[in-house]
């Protein structure tokens, strides 16, 4: 049994090493086919021009062995393509340099500039005249005068170039992470692309098999159920030792690549193409599909670990099963299935403000353009955030979401469980927490107001939105949305939130950053039936509860005073109660009146001296 366990560990490690190594396998080659594939939804001219530019620069059909060298040559092509297209279009239907010279000559009389609509009409006709009129009518005399002919020449040449470029705009390409990803994916070939199924088995398949071998053998090696945290602080993986640091590095690199350089991980997307194809014929997986699959698989495997580790604890079993079901059904399957019915592929349990794009124009349009069901889904989002969330927090505490439904919470409670003890319990950490989580909530609210305002106009009165330049209070809606997404959505929630599991514990995001957690926390603290009840005088101050609180709550500080735990940050995971050797803590939804929730007994129950009298005095 021990052998199987160790073998499982090695199989798992091998699968992870291979998974990483796949990024350096296969070839990348920009061919006419791959260019066509990349720009299949664009006009034919784009493909032709891009191929031409690629050829001129010696990149076409050149084979690269890794995505980095491929991209270092390819990324410059986008701008070159745009220049080329501009030039071509200018030649075809733009204002030529001869025409520009003619215009300048016609407008220059005796060293003076007299530029008018007549001059334009004199040299040009039809579309060309109309275009130039539109872009240069503000330059007409006598409204504007020129110090010298040179000034006019420069201004007009620039404007003509702009106008020409504008004509080409519809064929432009933009160098961003999405276009880089698309072009790299289409250009990839070789061992991975030809053996997707095999690599799917060797990475995901063996990873699952290996980790399950490691996990399930525990059932036989430690056959008696009960809290078994033996060796956690003696193990390099879970005490911030070198294994933890390696895992930390792996996770951070993973998130940086996923969010900012997805082109690097196209091989991973190829590996999971066969899974994507289960939903759409010949579906091509995006980096988000890789992430969603990896997320769901990790959660499932680690949920099995939870089922085994806490098999004596019904609360943990039910909670883990529910949070896993929400991940599989809502965050994974429905997101893939809904679009098959022409509905937006959204995670229906993802509540604002955790879902920071809820009111972004493209998101709202997605809903509104998807018929009655789509509109209903939009309303569902509003009801979820504004009614369901607070009402359920009142009855059950924020745990109903954070540790029973939420995807971030689900990952933290499964994959992150081995790291829960690493959360910082010091008072200073609590102070920092309050200085980060509430500002994030304020940021989210302000961002949403600005974005929502803009979306309203974009949908109902696009002219006004354009006239406002998509601004509200001088802040551009798209920019603030982007910045929020970058700082909070990607860096905080992803890179730090999950990447730092092995160093800061599994709830860094939930504790320090999540605006939804902040929102629910306020309700939980002031108006909720939920509390953790302390069982009279049974606490022996051992500190298991505080050590294993993933939210860094010093549970013992309350329990040893005989005081109930009523804290905004508690996500109700129930582990403090599970690890308590003396049966001191119980998560309860009871009365919401302050007295029964907060009461601090002056003398801990057990000393008769004046307990009841003193409680009376306190009233």
């Amino acid at each position, binding site marked *: 049994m021990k052998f199987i366990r160790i073998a499982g560990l090695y199989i798992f490690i091998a699968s992870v090493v291979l998974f990483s190594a796949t990024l350096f396998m296969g070839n990348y080659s920009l061919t006419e086919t791959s260019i066509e594939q990349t720009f299949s939804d664009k006009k034919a001219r784009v493909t032709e021009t891009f191929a031409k530019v690629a050829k001129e620069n010696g990149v076409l059909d050149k084979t690269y062995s890794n995505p980095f060298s491929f991209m270092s040559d390819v990324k410059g092509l986008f701008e070159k393509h745009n220049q080329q297209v501009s030039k071509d279009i200018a030649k075809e239907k733009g204002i030529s340099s001869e025409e520009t010279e003619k215009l300048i000559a016609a407008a220059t009389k005796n060293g003076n500039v007299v530029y008018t609509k007549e001059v334009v009409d004199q040299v040009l006709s039809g579309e060309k005249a109309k275009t130039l009129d539109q872009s240069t009518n503000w330059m007409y005399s006598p409204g504007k005068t020129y110090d010298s002919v040179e000034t006019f020449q420069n201004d007009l040449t620039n404007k003509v170039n702009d106008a020409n470029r504008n004509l080409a705009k519809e064929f432009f390409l933009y160098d961003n992470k999405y276009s880089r990803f698309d072009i790299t994916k289409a250009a990839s070939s070789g061992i991975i692309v030809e053996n997707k199924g095999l690599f799917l088995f060797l990475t995901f398949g063996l990873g699952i098999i290996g980790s399950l071998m490691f996990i399930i053998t525990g059932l036989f090696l430690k056959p008696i159920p009960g809290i078994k945290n033996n060796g956690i*602080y003696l193990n390099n993986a879970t005490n911030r030792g070198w294994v933890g640091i390696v895992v930390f590095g792996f996770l951070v690199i993973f998130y940086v690549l996923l969010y900012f350089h997805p082109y690097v991980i196209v091989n991973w997307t190829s590996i999971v193409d066969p899974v994507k194809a289960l939903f759409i014929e010949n579906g091509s997986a995006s980096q988000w599909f890789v992430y969603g699959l990896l997320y769901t698989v990790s959660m499932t495997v680690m949920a099995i670990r939870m089922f085994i580790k806490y098999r004596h604890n019904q609360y943990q079993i039910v909670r883990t099963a529910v949070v896993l079901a929400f991940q599989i059904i809502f965050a994974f399957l429905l997101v893939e299935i809904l679009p098959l019915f022409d509905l937006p592929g959204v995670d229906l349990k993802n509540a604002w403000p955790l879902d920071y794009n809820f009111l972004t124009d493209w998101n709202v349009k997605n809903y509104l353009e998807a018929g009655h069901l789509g509109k209903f889904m939009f309303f569902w989002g509003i009801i979820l955030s504004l009614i369901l969330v607070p009402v359920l927090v009142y009855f059950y505490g924020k745990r109903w979401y954070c540790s029973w439904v939420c995807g971030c919470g689900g990952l933290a409670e499964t994959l992150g469980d081995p790291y829960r003890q690493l959360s910082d319990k010091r008072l200073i950490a609590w102070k920092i927490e309050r200085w980060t989580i509430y500002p994030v909530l304020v940021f989210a609210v302000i961002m949403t107001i600005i974005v929502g305002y803009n979306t309203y106009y974009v949908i109902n009165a696009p002219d006004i939105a354009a006239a406002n330049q998509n601004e509200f209070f001088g802040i551009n809606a798209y920019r603030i949305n982007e910045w929020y997404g970058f700082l909070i959505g990607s860096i905080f929630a992803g890179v730090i939130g999950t990447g730092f599991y092995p160093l800061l514990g599994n709830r860094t995001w939930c504790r320090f950053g999540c605006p939804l957690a902040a929102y629910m926390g306020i309700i939980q603290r002031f108006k909720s039936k939920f509390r953790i009840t302390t*069982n009279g005088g049974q606490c022996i101050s051992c500190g298991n509860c505080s050590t294993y609180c993933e939210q860094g709550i010093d549970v013992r500080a309350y329990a040893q005073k005989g005081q109930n735990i009523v804290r905004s940050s508690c996500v109700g995971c129930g582990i403090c109660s599970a690890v308590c050797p003396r049966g001191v803590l119980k998560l309860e939804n009871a009365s919401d009146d302050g007295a029964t929730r907060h009461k601090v007994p002056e003398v801990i129950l*057990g000393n008769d*001296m004046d307990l009841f009298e003193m409680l009376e005095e306190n009233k």
Partner: protein
Amino acid sequence: MEHIVIIGNGISGVTAARHIRKLSDKKITIISAETEYFFSRTALMYIYMGHMKFEHTQPYENWFWEKNRIELKKGFVKHVKDASKELVFASGETMKYDKLIIATGSKPNKFGWPGQDLNGVMGMYHKQDLEKLEQYAPNNDVCKRAVIVGGGLIGIELAEMLQSRDIPVTFLVRESSFWNGVLPAGESEMINQHIKEHHIDLRLGVNLQEIKADENGNVKSIIIKETGEEIPCTVVGLTAGVSPNVDFLKDSNIELGRGVKVNRRLETNVKDIYAIGDCAEQHEAIGNRRPIEAVWYTGRMMGETLAQTLCGNPRDYNPGHWFNSAKFLDIEYQTYGWVFGERGRPDYEQHFHWKHPKKHICITIAFHKETRKFLGINTFGIRMRHHSFDTWLNENRSVEYVLEHLADANFDPEFYKQYEKEIVAQFNSEHQTAIKPKKRSWKRIFSY
């Protein structure tokens, strides 16, 4: 400003200091030879087992003491000169006090066994014991087998600790069944089974004859008195109870019994000297309690009580209804009120015992044969609400009442299976009663 000096930074001393600070502005000094800062002794086992680091056993952060103006002094007090109100440290230093609180706790018992001071023999009480264990039993290569002598709560904890590092353990218990001086027979037997199920070599009804040394003065083996069997081992844990740590007071005028003799005000015979916690011995036992109570929460209560007295609010130490809890490997145990084992059980005490057919879950309820008054409950594998039982004991409720409202007292986590129906059904059939268990009611729970 009055200077209050507390010897001992355990739960009693620290609780007294905290409450004196809450109630007054007096100067407070806590002296300890063991550690710089207060830690929870009950958690030492979890450090060895890797559940926690030492810092996690400290309930207060290091800045707490200065912020609350509680001075900490590391040192070993050798003499108490009560006439001149002065302490003398082993280092030769002295310290004046106005009021002295002795809270020095316990030390492991040693009964003069041959070899009891060899290398590799240790108790499991002080932080230094933990360090010693880490030295002599870091893993099962260095320590091929350990023998534990004494079947109490610390003994089984030490067994669990060693077992967490896969070190084979032989567990010598003097009694014929584990902890049967306290537990009724059925419960004691269940724990025996559980210990064996963990592959701990449990030897019941045996005593230690001697500990044998190798040529370097290290433990080599032990001999069992009854059988003469020699068991090779490299570590011996002596966990045959604890006794008050009061040797340093022998040359003072303070009256000593086994511990420091105190009255209900926790005063010693010398004015301005008090004793609390494990080292205090009541002149007369309170109720069914022992004169010396080496229990975590009684130390805490004595600390709170004495703080009131010292701050002008004199109170008697008046512990309420007995309660306690422990964990035997994987089985949690709680008790409220009095449930006696075979030893010392009063004639009027009748027991009702229910046990889960398969799992290690059981309860024993003690009640008065004639009056039917509820006397106490032991639960294994079921958590109970302290407040409910405290109230029922105060209100002198009958066993029938307690069974009827048992669901109110259940403190198991949500979704756990509850057994009130089965328990009451068995009671009804054994006692020809017709009790109907009521559903849990928050209204009642909060009214208790």
